[in-house]
């Protein structure tokens, strides 16, 4: 009997009522205070970023020259910048980009990580070359390389896809293809162990083709480590993007992200410290809450901890 079925079986004995795996995971997750607080904060930020512009209706690109470098007020809750643009509107707008970059880059990284991990774990012949490729990518100096790639390919992509889409595609893609390695290693380890289990052997013995074994029998069993690294991947991607923007090599000022707002605000921080404070605070809160959610998910999905 596998760990999961045994735990479910024990739960049945104790409580008489059948309990699903999802229910167990959810119960454990809600017991993790940090994870619950993280979920609440993260949901709040996501909702604010999506629906905020409907309530706070100032256009983030509108320059009100009579209201430059203002502090916090009711009209401008986070103040205004040196061109008289409203900071709250810009933070909300920037959050859309930052979060979108985080999610899409994470999705790309998870796709490559899972693909490489499953192929390396399942097909013995691919294991050596793919893992050597992973080691090679791990040895690459990521931040310098990202900076270099952006510097070199920014203009070409801008002229092909337009200034906003071009830089978005570039950043999301390069963050994605430089952060799949940890996932690939974890997935490979799990697949190697799963491959030897009886249910995979049974599936093989009735002639199930490899792709169906992978999709039907292996994928559902490796979902939990993938979910944990996906959560943490969002946080890393958001930080990487802001670091690039902060060094002036990310998104342009008229299409800001939180990192870009920090970069632009850094020159004016003696006049209006709130320009640095708010984007940085929102960025840090997002990353912190996502990290806590990841922590809680890891505990909830780990059968050794769950049910204790």
């Amino acid at each position, binding site marked *: 009997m596998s760990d999961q079925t045994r735990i479910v079986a024990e739960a049945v004995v104790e409580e008489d009522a059948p309990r699903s795996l999802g229910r167990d995971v959810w119960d454990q997750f809600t017991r993790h205070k940090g994870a619950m607080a993280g979920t609440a904060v993260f949901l709040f930020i996501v909702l604010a970023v999506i629906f905020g512009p409907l309530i706070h209706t100032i256009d983030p690109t509108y320059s009100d020259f009579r209201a430059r470098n203002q502090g916090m007020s009711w009209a401008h809750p986070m103040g205004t910048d040196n061109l008289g643009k409203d900071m709250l509107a810009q933070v909300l707008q920037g959050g859309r980009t930052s979060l979108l970059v985080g999610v899409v880059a994470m999705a790309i990284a998870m796709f490559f990580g899972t693909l490489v991990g499953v192929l390396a774990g399942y097909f013995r012949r691919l294991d050596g070359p793919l893992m050597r490729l992973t080691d*090679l990518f791990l040895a690459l100096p990521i931040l310098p390389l990202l900076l270099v790639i952006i510097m070199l390919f920014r203009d070409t992509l801008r002229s092909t896809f337009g200034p906003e889409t071009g830089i978005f595609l570039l950043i999301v893609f390069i963050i994605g293809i430089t952060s799949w390695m940890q996932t690939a290693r974890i997935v490979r380890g799990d697949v190697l162990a799963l491959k030897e289990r009886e249910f995979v052997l049974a599936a093989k013995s009735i002639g199930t083709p490899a792709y169906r074994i992978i999709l039907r029998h292996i994928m559902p069993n490796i979902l939990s480590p993938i979910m944990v690294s996906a959560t943490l991947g969002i946080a890393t991607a958001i930080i990487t993007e802001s670091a690039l923007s902060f060094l002036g090599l990310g998104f342009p000022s008229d299409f800001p992200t939180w990192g870009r707002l920090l970069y632009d605000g850094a020159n004016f921080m003696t006049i209006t410290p709130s320009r640095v404070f708010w984007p940085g605070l929102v960025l840090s809160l997002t990353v912190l809450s996502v990290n806590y959610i990841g922590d809680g998910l890891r505990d909830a999905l780990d059968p050794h901890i769950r049910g204790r």
Partner: protein
Amino acid sequence: MFAFTIRRLLISIPTLLAISFIVFAILDLAPSDPTGNLPLTIPPEVRQQIRDSLGLDEPFPVRYALWLKQFFINEPLNLIEGWTGWQFGDGDRLRVTSWATRSPVVDLIIERLPQTLWVVGMSQVVAVIIAVPIGVISAYKQYSWFDQIGTFVSMVGFSIPTFFTGLVFIVFFSVQLQWFPSIYDTNHEVTDWDSFVFQIKQMIMPTMVLALATAAQLSRYMRASMLDNLQQDYVRTARSKGLTERVVVTIHVLRNSMIPVVTVIALNIPTIFGGAIITEQIFRVNGIGQLLIIGIQGADIPLVQTLTFIFAVLIVLFNLIADVLYGILDPRIRYE
């Protein structure tokens, strides 16, 4: 152990070659022309001469081989000559030169390396000093208020990016309190007590920003490693033979728990160099991170190639050091 080290060294050669190829290819295949920014008044034949002098029209493999030779043979020989005064050949070797300043790239890097090493090195020391006691106490008093606060603070420190802490530090300590200068003055020389105090003052903020980020991560590892070890049988043995708690924790458990932490520190050092790019940019420390940014903004390809590759060498080197350290510190691990 020696055989293992040699084997690992040999394995890292193809890795480094592959990385150097990637670094070279990315920069080389990029659609950018170093003569593109020159004034249009330069006549075409002069422009062609400039291109020739930069070696731009050679085929790709030739340029790659040339760069490899410059990087792996010419530059190390020059360094050895500079340090020891020995003479190899006629000393007239083709060096990797920066397009922007026309001076050898290696000289530029050596000029800026001390600043980076000071800031990064000090931050590592401070991080260990902060992280180890916090991790030890957190684990020893698990779920106490100290542990709760410590875990929370390390999670916060782990999540807040250095460019935000750096800016907050500047706003708070330089602008509001005026304790420390916000800009690192590299020309400053330590001659007497006052200038020494100034040097300490200007180093505090960049060092602390890096140190706090590293300490947050390290204390998490330290705590986890301590927790693992505290449940081992040898701890019960040590206690039952009447050793004091202090001896049990500091001598027996701490020493065993440091093994994985030491390797984490070693593995972290290249990342710190990467993180120092941002910190150096905030505090205007003119170290190698800032050199990289300048090179990138000025499209100075030889400089960027060399620096990126040096970062890669650091990663491979410290991976090797971590593996070897692990083997030395933990006699249970046998690589042979």
